[in-house]
């Protein structure tokens, strides 16, 4: 297993370099470059272009810039923002934990919703509970999170005069766990879980719920489950010890693949809820063509996805003893 993990980590290096090259050069060929963004509505004369490029350190060939940037990244120096000169490392220190925490919370919330509903829906197939669960799942899949988030913000303000806390009130979990969880889960009060992590979690749960139900139904029809029933085992034992573990294998894959969706979702949800995280930063950085910021965030997102996939693969071995890596 150790060798396998090492191999996978080594294979991740070219993947990450590939991602960094694509992001780096795609940004530079994107119409509406950083120079025009800095110049605003002024006409970019060759003189002004040269001046701005000099100011931003973009007056060298792109490949030179890339290798210099890559060299700095290897030493964990992501440089400074091209738009406001702030240190990207400093901003990452504040925003990365926020987005990671929100995404993890969302994942946990999605599982808390999806697994029980998916299981109940399967073991009580075609019952009222099943129909209700399936309807909820389809509803969660169909409603876009940005719309739901907007409605939550608008109606909570209209009906109750509530507003979410402002970004100045955000505290990292290690600074003030209560304030942190309030911001991400209970922004309107402790019994009203309508925070950004919940919104993200709810929108993820639909897929997991549907898949759990399908897999459970399939597994419940397997011979070994029938044997377990024939042995007179209790339902809880049959479900948890025999069916669930096997049904979860494809579900785990999907959960791992949810990470890019979480990253994408955080971009919008953070903007709606004013969460000072990486998603909101990425959104403004792309609009402003802040190359260094986008490069850093894209690379970190790629690292997160690669890591999540590795964790999923390792989790397979735990869930299915037949799988052996080496």
């Amino acid at each position, binding site marked *: 297993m150790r060798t396998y993990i090492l191999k996978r980590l080594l294979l991740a290096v070219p993947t990450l370099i590939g991602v960094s090259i694509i992001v780096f050069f795609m940004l530079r060929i*994107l*119409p*509406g*470059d950083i120079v*025009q*963004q*800095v*110049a*605003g*509505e*002024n*006409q*970019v*004369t060759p003189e*002004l272009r040269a*001046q*701005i490029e000099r*100011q931003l350190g973009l007056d060298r060939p792109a490949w030179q810039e890339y290798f210099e940037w890559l060299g700095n990244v290897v030493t964990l120096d992501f440089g*400074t*923002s091209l*738009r*406001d*000169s*702030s240190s990207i490392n400093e*901003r990452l220190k*504040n*925003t990365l934990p926020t987005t990671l925490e929100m995404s993890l919370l969302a994942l946990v919330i999605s599982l808390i919703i999806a697994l029980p509903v998916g299981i109940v829906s399967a073991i009580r197939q075609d019952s009222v509970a099943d129909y209700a669960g399936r309807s909820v799942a389809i509803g969660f899949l169909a409603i876009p999170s*940005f*719309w739901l988030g*907007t*409605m939550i*913000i*608008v*109606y*909570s*303000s*209209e*009906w*109750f*005069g*509530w*507003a*979410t806390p*402002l*970004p*100045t009130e*955000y505290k990292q979990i290690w600074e003030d766990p209560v304030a942190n969880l309030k911001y991400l889960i209970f922004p309107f009060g402790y019994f009203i879980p309508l925070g950004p992590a919940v919104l993200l979690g709810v929108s993820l749960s639909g897929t997991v719920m549907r898949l759990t139900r399908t897999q459970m139904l399939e597994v419940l029809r397997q011979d070994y489950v029938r044997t377990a029933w024939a042995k007179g085992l209790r339902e809880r034992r049959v479900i948890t010890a025999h069916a669930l573990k096997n049904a979860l294998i494809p579900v785990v894959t999907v959960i791992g693949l949810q990470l890019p969706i979480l990253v994408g979702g955080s971009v919008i949800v953070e*903007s*709606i*809820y*004013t969460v*000072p995280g990486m998603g*909101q*930063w990425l*959104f*403004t950085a792309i*609009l*402003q*063509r802040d190359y260094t910021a986008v490069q850093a965030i894209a690379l970190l997102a790629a690292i997160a996805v690669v890591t999540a996939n590795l964790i999923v693969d390792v989790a397979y071995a735990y869930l299915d003893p037949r799988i052996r890596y080496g």
Partner: protein
Amino acid sequence: MPKPASYWDKFTQSRISRRRALQMAAVGGASAGAIWIVGCGGDDDDENGQATPSGNGNGEVITGGTFRGSVSLVLGKDPHKASTFLTHALASQAYSRLLRFKTTTGELRQDEWYTTENELASQVETPDDTTYIFTIRPEAKFQNLPPVNGREVTGEDVVYSFNRYSEISPNKANLSMVDSVTADGKTVTFKLKEPFGLFRNRIASFQDLWIMPREFVEQSETASEDSMLGSGPFIFERFEPNVVMSWRKNPDYWETDDQGNQLPYLDGVQLDIITDQNQVLSQFAAGALDSIFVPPQLLNNVRSQNPNAIIDGAMRNVLSFLYFEPASYTAGKPPFNDERVRQGMSMIINRDALLSRISDEGGGWPNLINAGFGESWWLNPKGDDIGDAGKYYQYNLDEARALFEAAGVGDGFNTPMHYSSTVYTTIVPYYDIVRQSLPALLEEANISVEQRGEEYGVYISKTFGRGEFEGFTFGLESVFSDIAAYWTNMFYPRDAGGGRNHSSVSDATLNDRIAAMLRIQDLEELREANFDLQRYVSEKMYYVPVVTPVEFSARQPRLKNVQNTTGPTTYATGTEGYLRLMKEA
């Protein structure tokens, strides 16, 4: 005293219709900052006790409190380096200019819009048409922080700032008429290459000559982007990207009010960075923000949800207009090379219908100069003074068809229409409403439009900046604080100050007339020449101006002594807006 609305009152008054919910969802993107404490036309000020020279109307000054507003974006802190009004508008918290624009508590008379008053300068002498001698106030000093430690502002600081501005500012063409700047102690002399009648406005412009101390700027390569340190009323305190930007009161600020009270009255200014417009509205409703910008389509909603809020309306100096493919002027490419087609295009636009679609409050019709400049500088296309050219602004489908017929396109034509599909749509909420309406209006004259939306970055560089587009474009012209900037930017050749000549308009007669106007020293004479130019371009319709809707801001009644409750909206905020602002506890 009005009875405070109960929860159930608010609940019953504020039920949201499906249409309004959709509107809210539609504006749920990035929004411009609501830094609208200057330049908003109040429509119910009197009832709420505003428009009084002092805080509570009893002559008492209210000190303390922190103004809470919001911005959607902060793009740097160095006003010399920046090209965006977002940075320029905030500069006056910490920096000063030699002159600023006049403000007053309550309404500013229209004939005083865009007039200047002294800021750092105590007097301005003009011994001849090309010499301006500014004497700097003896009491003016920088903030008491290292490395300047509260030293006096001198003429050398102005020279240093001008040289730096001339070297690095993307706006440096705005002061290209200056030949030299020299200092002698507390006086500084600007020699111009030729007379420039609106020079005082240019010096007061919030986009140009901010006075920055050399020691601070040269402290490190990034000092002016890491912080702000000038002679302004507020000391830069904190900037966290996507979170907040704040300033605290400069306790040693050199300016006092007429009664000798120390300015500013506020203890600080905090601008929360909020990108989502619905968040801004809900934070205002919850009382967290003191003042916000209100999208016109949500005006009634904001009114009903915040019955005690004071709603202000004003026409901004953002010009909405159609501009044509440059080849129309440079290569005579039909159909827009023919002024009859351009005139016809203008006559198809039913401006009043468009304004009523935007909000019930209406607005004005711009010609090239915007209605937001006020009648001292803007010739109302509906009025008599514009002469015959006024007819080209009137909705007249038959006349438009006749013009198209005469130009040989009586059966109509197909044309691409470019527009920005992002940013404009959220920072200028009426933009998308107008954009959606235009194709149907043009269709009435058989002009079939193929809409080409472009992401803002693409739009601003390719279409707006380089003029690389076909057909025509619906665009916005950013704010300038004097009319000369519109004339030179939009008509001079690109390499001679025409940075916004999007269509490469080339009219030597017009350019000569603009140059002649700029040299006029007498303001009344200059105004007349400016009006003549407006008549001329209204005839030519090089650009087709669209509408200037009334736009809105809302503020909590606890804000007092608000400046310029009607009037210009393109002033710097710190000095003109927050300097005399008061906030009740």
